[in-house]
């Protein structure tokens, strides 16, 4: 269906893709995998003819025998959306914000088919139904920002298959989504592909997506092809070290279980934070002990970030209690708060946004020292600890790579010798190989300095590798908490089980006012007989006993 031979794309003098060849047959799924900068997206745009004018392309792209690299803009416009369609990664912006979703899908239909407005609108509703959007009539009249991330991604798929394309390209279709929703989207994508019989080019940096959905895989690195073959071949017996690194990053070994340390450094009891209309944190309790890593997982909107911000505020919470190193935050004077802040530091997700671009690395790392009246003489030592040459102190963040910037952020966080480090998705913006390096650095620092980590991440294998204990958050509450090996090998809560298996869960259910908040999505609840069900409807489950799961019906609990 699509035949790419010896494709090279370069922006100015920078090559993005070099000598890439692949083909995808009708009904087949090819996974194109690689890190950012490996040329995946440039390839997709080259096929669609959507590269910016500054890019130059050589080689050949044939769609159904027709050469696309030399085709005129008019011909490409006719082919786009009809013969070939693309599903972009959705960071909120893939739909025009001012038009209704249904209208945008209908527009795609009317771009290629001479049908009346009404027919196109009806077809748009059918397509939304096809991709599993509930209440499609109503939803077609919604604006993009009224959709959740998963729903937008589904609507994009609906729009892409609207004209039954021969080739469907999905560019990182699940990257911005939560694990359980990812699984759902991949299912929808495969359904849509089956329905239309299209060839599917699946572009991702996530090996598990390829493993789940693709027939063949093509591994790219720095614009060059590293390895290609069927998914089984490549995943089972990777020939190249690069592929092996990718696979290793996906698999997880458990940490050895150890007795819990005695000293509690951070204790949270029944913490509540309600925003108007949203119960962001709704009764959360846990403790973190000295030298321990507590992994905090949960989908976006589950309240992880609000929880962290409540802890970092070092103020009196709306309800509940936060105790840092034995001091109740509600009782702190201004002076004490300043002192406690030294012991509680944070590293944010995106180092390019959390470092002031106008300050040098040295100034960034020195700032906490100066603020607390200490000598900035330690800056070179701190840089050395995070594996950066002392000369980097004079540079600005823009001149560093993503991994190096995160090292700077870590150096800043440890400058005051804190006892607790809060890590909010510290590696999720980084590529897998860099990610492994930063995780290694964090592990070493913890061992050397006896730090305690509160580690937020949505990457489950990563949490499994580095956390002693794991807390799973769901809609403002902890669904399950316990030692990592126990949570990962014998999960008690149905939500944890779904997360671990990456099972598909719906993402468009309404929030629940009483009883178990996981009920509408719960696979266990769906199968329960009426009598035990009623308890889920009326009674909010609490975390109980050793099992640590907030579920009325998990295996350790009497029915």
């Amino acid at each position, binding site marked *: 269906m699509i035949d790419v031979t010896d494709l090279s794309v370069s922006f100015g003098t920078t090559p993005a893709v070099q000598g890439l060849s692949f083909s995808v047959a009708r009904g087949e799924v090819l996974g194109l995998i690689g890190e950012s900068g490996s040329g995946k997206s440039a390839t997709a745009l080259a096929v669609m003819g*959507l590269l910016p004018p500054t890019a130059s392309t050589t080689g050949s792209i044939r769609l159904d025998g027709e050469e696309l690299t030399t085709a005129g803009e008019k011909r490409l*416009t006719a082919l786009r959306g009809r013969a070939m369609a693309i599903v972009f990664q959705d960071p909120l912006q893939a739909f025009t914000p001012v*038009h209704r979703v249904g209208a945008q899908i209908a527009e795609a239909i009317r771009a290629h088919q001479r049908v009346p407005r009404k027919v196109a609108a009806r077809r748009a509703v059918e397509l939304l139904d096809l991709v599993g959007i509930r209440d499609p009539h109503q939803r077609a009249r919604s*604006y993009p920002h*009224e959709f959740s991330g998963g729903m937008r991604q589904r609507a994009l798929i609906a*729009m892409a298959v609207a004209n039954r394309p021969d080739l469907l390209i999905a560019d990182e279709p699940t990257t911005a989504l939560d694990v359980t929703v990812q699984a759902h989207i991949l299912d929808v994508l495969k359904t849509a592909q089956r329905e239309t019989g299209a060839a599917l080019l699946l572009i991702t940096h996530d090996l598990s997506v390829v493993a789940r959905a693709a027939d063949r895989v093509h591994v790219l690195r720095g614009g060059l092809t590293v390895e290609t073959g069927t998914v089984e071949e490549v995943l089972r017996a990777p020939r190249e070290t690069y592929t092996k690194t990718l696979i290793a990053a996906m698999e997880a070994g458990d940490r050895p279980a150890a007795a819990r340390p005695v000293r509690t450094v951070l204790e949270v009891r029944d913490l509540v934070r309600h925003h108007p209309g949203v119960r962001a944190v709704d009764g959360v309790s846990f403790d973190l002990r000295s030298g321990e890593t507590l992994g905090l997982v949960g989908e976006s909107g589950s309240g992880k970030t609000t929880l962290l911000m409540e802890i970092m505020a070092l103020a009196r919470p709306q309800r509940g209690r936060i105790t840092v190193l034995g001091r109740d935050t509600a009782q702190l004077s201004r002076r004490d708060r300043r002192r406690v802040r030294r012991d509680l530091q944070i590293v944010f997700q995106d180092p390019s946004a959390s470092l002031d671009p106008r300050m040098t690395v040295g100034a960034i790392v020195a700032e906490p020292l100066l603020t607390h009246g200490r000598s900035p003489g330690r800056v070179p030592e701190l840089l050395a600890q995070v594996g950066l040459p002392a000369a980097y102190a004079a540079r600005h963040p823009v001149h560093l790579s993503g991994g190096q910037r995160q090292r700077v952020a870590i150096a800043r966080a440890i400058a005051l010798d804190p006892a607790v480090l809060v890590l909010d998705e510290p590696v999720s913006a980084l590529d897998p190989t860099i990610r492994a390096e930063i995780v290694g650095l964090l592990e070493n620092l913890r061992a050397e300095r006896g730090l305690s980590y509160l580690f937020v991440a949505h990457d489950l294998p990563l949490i499994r590798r580095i956390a002693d204990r794991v807390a799973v958050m769901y809609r403002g509450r902890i669904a399950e908490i316990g030692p990592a090996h126990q949570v990962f090998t014998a999960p008690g809560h149905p939500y944890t089980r779904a997360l671990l298996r990456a099972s598909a869960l719906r993402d468009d259910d309404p929030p629940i006012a009483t009883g178990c908040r996981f009920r509408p999505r719960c696979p266990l609840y769906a199968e329960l007989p009426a009598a035990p069900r009623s308890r889920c409807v009326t009674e909010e489950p609490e975390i109980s006993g050793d099992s640590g799961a907030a579920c009325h019906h998990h295996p350790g609990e009497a029915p």
Partner: protein
Amino acid sequence: MGIMVRLVNYAALIVVASSLAWLLAAVTLDPRANYAGRTPAPPVAVVDAALSEVNLNDHDPLLDRYLTWVSGLARGDFGRTWDGLSVGADLADRAGVTLRLVTAGLVVGALLGLTVGTLAAVHHRRWFDRLSGGLVFMLLAVPTVVLANVLILGTVWFNDATGARFLMVSGETGAGGPFDRLRHLVLPALTLALPLAAVFSRYQRNAMLDVLNADYVRTARAKGLPRRTVIVRHALRTALIPTTTYLTFTFGALLVGSTVTETVFGWHGLGQRLITAIQTSDVNTVAGITAVAAVALLLSAVAADALQRVLNPGRAR
């Protein structure tokens, strides 16, 4: 926030703004000076009486004068000028004149600016972009008074050369009738419109450049929509949101800010009146014009809000 609450807030703001203007004018201006140069000098008692008659006597207590003014304002009476004319009637006339001028200037300026800005963004760094950019900076560098006179000279030359007398270079109306008014309107409206268009086009160009790189524009192209549809329905439509807010507020500011244009073309508008009122120390006129300006600005705010609702639907505010 409820519409009613907002309107009440706006009304309060108007009262506060014009009160401050009145107080400032009452403290700094000296209406007595209007009688100073007379020969023979009128007796102080006569001047006092005349000034008290129009509530401008600085020997009367400030608070009393203010209360008189406010209670008049509450009845819709803006007070009197130093020579006893009604401020309200005067301003009503002049507001009409200025409104015609500013509306025409703004509409032409907006259409021109939006078009040029959009085209410049679409042809980013090509000849149209460079040429329009050059013209824009030239227009911004030229003072209004120079621009107005260049337009007048050009028109006079054109009229002389062709013998036709289509465009009028002075006054607001001659023989009367809508066509005659239009002939008088073109030049002053252009004088207002061109610098406005220059500024708008830069705003619009930047807004368009932002959205032309947006993901949804790429999505629209990937659907197979023709280029023109992508630009108009997806890019331009979204880029209008920030630009219109700026545009609407300009209207409020222009209402008293087109003094130079009014003066050069002999239009007796609000901006010009404000200057003469300060010269003759007409406290009530100054406060009245401030009130009109405040109303205009708040109406602009309401209009901006309404336009946002239309252009950016479904957003929670």
